[in-house]
Structure formats: C-alpha cells, structure tokens
C-alpha cells in the first residue's frame, strides 16, 4: 500500500494536497483504487461548482460497480483533471498523480489524517 507522507487523508479514502493557504488538490488513494478495482469511467464535476465537506462531488465506475467520491473540504472547484475523462484507468495506475479536482476558497474541512494514522485506518479495514 502506497501512502505518501506529504498528503492528508480522509476516512473515505480521498487524499488532499495543500497547494497554498486556501487551495487544495483532491484525488483517491491507493487503497481506494484497490477496493474499487479496474476503473472505466468517471463522472467529473465542472469548474465553478461548489463542493461541501462530506458530500459527494463525483462518481467513478469500476467494472463491478459505481461509487461516490466525497469532498473532504468545502469550497469552489477551481480546476478539473480533464485527462481522466478519457483515461480513468490513471486512477488505478498512479492514484497520487491522477488528481481529480482542485478546490479554492476552502472554508471548512472534515477530519483529515496524516499518513501514519491513515495507514492504521486502512489496516483495520483490510483486517475484517
């Protein structure tokens, strides 16, 4: 399991990279892509859309099922990774490079975990 030190993580397996004081980049973790399996489609939001901490902003389709992706922060989408539209499998092959959205004017966020704590959460989930 790849869990980079420089990122923060949500319980629902999104990663957050702080770009500056009020802007973050969001994607799904290695654990998430392993749980989801081969990803074949992503329903991307649009620049300018509002996102709310704990609420879904996108969904991804694997061969098996469709799954929601939740925003760990509240703010406004300032960029969308359009490359994922044609190459959703990048989220499988390089989950930490295949960012999904950037959010600006972040005003609120849910509880986020450092790499070490997140590794424990993953281990617990794998355990059962």
């Amino acid at each position, binding site marked *: 399991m790849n869990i980079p030190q420089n990122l923060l993580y949500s319980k629902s397996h999104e990663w957050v990279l702080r770009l500056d004081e009020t802007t973050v980049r969001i994607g799904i973790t290695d654990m998430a892509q392993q749980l989801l399996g*081969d990803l074949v489609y992503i*329903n991307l939001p649009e620049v300018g859309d509002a996102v709310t901490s704990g609420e879904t902003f996108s969904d991804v389709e694997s*061969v098996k*099922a469709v799954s929601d992706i939740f925003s760990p922060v509240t703010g406004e989408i300032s960029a969308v990774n359009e490359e994922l539209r044609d190459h959703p499998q990048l989220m499988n092959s390089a989950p930490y490079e295949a960012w999904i959205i950037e959010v600006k004017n972040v005003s609120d966020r849910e509880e986020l975990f450092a790499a070490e704590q997140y590794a424990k959460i993953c281990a617990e989930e794998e355990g059962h």
Partner: protein
Amino acid sequence: MEKKTPLYDCHLAAGGKLVPFAGYLLPIQYATGIITEHMAVRQQAGLFDVSHMGEVIYSGRDAEKNLNRLLTNDIALLHYGEVCYSPMCNTEGGFVDDLIVYKLGDEKYMLVVNASNREKDVAWMQEHLFGEVQFADISDDTAELALQGPNSTAILAKLTDAAALPVDNYTFKENIQLNGISCLVSVTGYTGEMGYEIYLDNAHAAEVWNLLLTAGKELGLIPCGLGSRDTLRLEAGMPLYGHEMNDRITPLEIGLSYFVHLEKEGGFLGKEAMIAKKPYTNKRVGLKVIGRGIVREQEKIFIGEQEIGITTSGTYCPYFGCGLAMARVQKKYGKIGTQVDVEVRGKRIAAEIVALPFYKRDRTTAPSVSSK
C-alpha cells in the same frame, strides 16, 4: 457461514479477492484485475473455479422420461457423449432454472444447475420423480473447473493424450486422464470462447488446478474470478438466472425457443401456460452504450418520453471497450438500430439496440492441438 470450495486455499495463494457468492466464498478477481482476466480469456486462456455449481444424477429405466417431462428441450434427441442446454420451467411456464444435461449412458444423465438455485432445483426435481428412476445430488463431492480461451486445447494437450479430448462443441469425454487423475471433460463454457469444463472429485481439484496453471503459464493462462466470468458471459449474450430470466419469464419471451420443444411427445411442465401466454409483447435485446457512462441492470429505457423497457444486465465490457447491456423491451420498439436513452441515476445516456450476442468468436480457424 459460507462454504469453501476445494480450491479455497489455491485462491488465497493466488491473491484472490474472496467474496460470498451463492453460499460459497469465491474469488471475484485476482490481483491482475477483471479487465486483464477478461482479455486473457479472449486472447490466451483463463481458469475459473466453478465448483459451486450443482450437479445431480438421474439414472434408471425412466430417467429419460423423467427429464423429458421436467425440461423443455427434447432429451430423447441426445446421444451418449453429448451435452444440451435446457430451461426447466414451473407450471406457469416461468423458469425454475436453466441447466445443462450430459448423457452419460442410455439410462444415466448428469444435470448441472446454478449454485444459487441448487436447493430449489433439487426440491423441484424430487417432487416430480416418477417411475423407475434414481436421483442423486453429487454437488458436494464434485469439483468443476472451467478452462476457457483460444489456448485451452493446447494447454490440455500438454497434460493428456490430445487425441482423447472431445472436439465438437457441446460434447464430452469421460475418464480423461490429467496426470493420472480421471476427469470428465466437455467442450462447454460460459464465455463465448473455445474452452472446456472439467469435472472431478473434490479430492483432486487442487492438484488439477495447479497442473493446469503450470502447464498453461507459457500459453498465457491465468486464474480468473467471478467478475470476468460475468463480463465475458454478457459479451457472449448469455442470459443469467435472476437477471434475464426468473420464475415469471418464459423461455419463449427471451429468445430461447430453440431450446423449447413444444411438439415433443408427452409435453413438459409449463408447456400449456407457456402457450396460453402467447403472443409475447416483450423481447430480449442487446444495448450498446453510445454516450459516456456505464449502464447497469434495472435501469429504465426510453425513446423520447416513452418508456419502452428495462435493462437486465449491464457493465463495461473490456473486449469492446464500452458499456453493454441486455434489456427487456416492448417488442414493437426492439428493432436493431433503434436509438434509445437509458436513465442512469437521473441522467440519460444514449444507447443503440444491437444484435445478440455482442461477441462471437471466429470459428473459421480450428483450435490447434500440438502433440503431448
């Protein structure tokens, strides 16, 4: 508590992601992933554990009569060494299950049924036994492996006398020796590909599984799970119980009339109801997703504002690289080439009605058999 197949430890060793399915713990996929497994079967070969399937034996003087009363296909047409597919219907003409029949002798047959229906099927079969017939459920002692893909013949030929293998589709040979282990081997499967189903005693299942994987390694053979089994069967346009068929749908309305012999002597369970329900207003069709997205099952289909049917199976199909689905639509709208919309979580995705099966293997090149 789920049961384990005799290959449980093999799945764990191979990195299988085990999930509960039809009362068993089975791999949904291995570390390679569903797409890789799917493409292995289309291009090289894949090995599936299908030991969860149910097997029952009919024997005795009236075995054939029993089966001809129970099943819609005409079992009297079957010769020793042949296999046939048949619906098994209730008295309303709906499916109890669909199954395949092996003629093991003049007075002996093996039926292979869906794992999730096994108990219901066995009860239904026992309820309708008559005359001189013995019935045995051998499911718990029998392992089944499915070796599927264009390289499957070459793989088996490394382990046994190639000349002894069954050749024609829907035929089988008994007592095929795989490294001295006696197996029943049929040219059957659920993937649309050239392939075999191998039946043997539980005791030797793990040994044969490992033998096949080793023999097949250089020919691209990998273990495959339930996930790719489902994407392959969807591409092959094969109906699945609980999806395209259920206890209220008759075989005639999902395009299986080829397996329903209304004219056979003595009739069969469900025949009268099936005829009384004619003409059927629905039909089973294939859908190819044109727009962006994936269509799953139980999603409504529209032409404009007119609702014309519902999807019964649907997913992303790796061979075609797009979403495909099977659907039940009103017959009058079911013409090939018709443009429709499928409502997926409140959004409409464009799709087109296309011919089934989506995938048909090229049968112009015979499978190659190298000597042992």
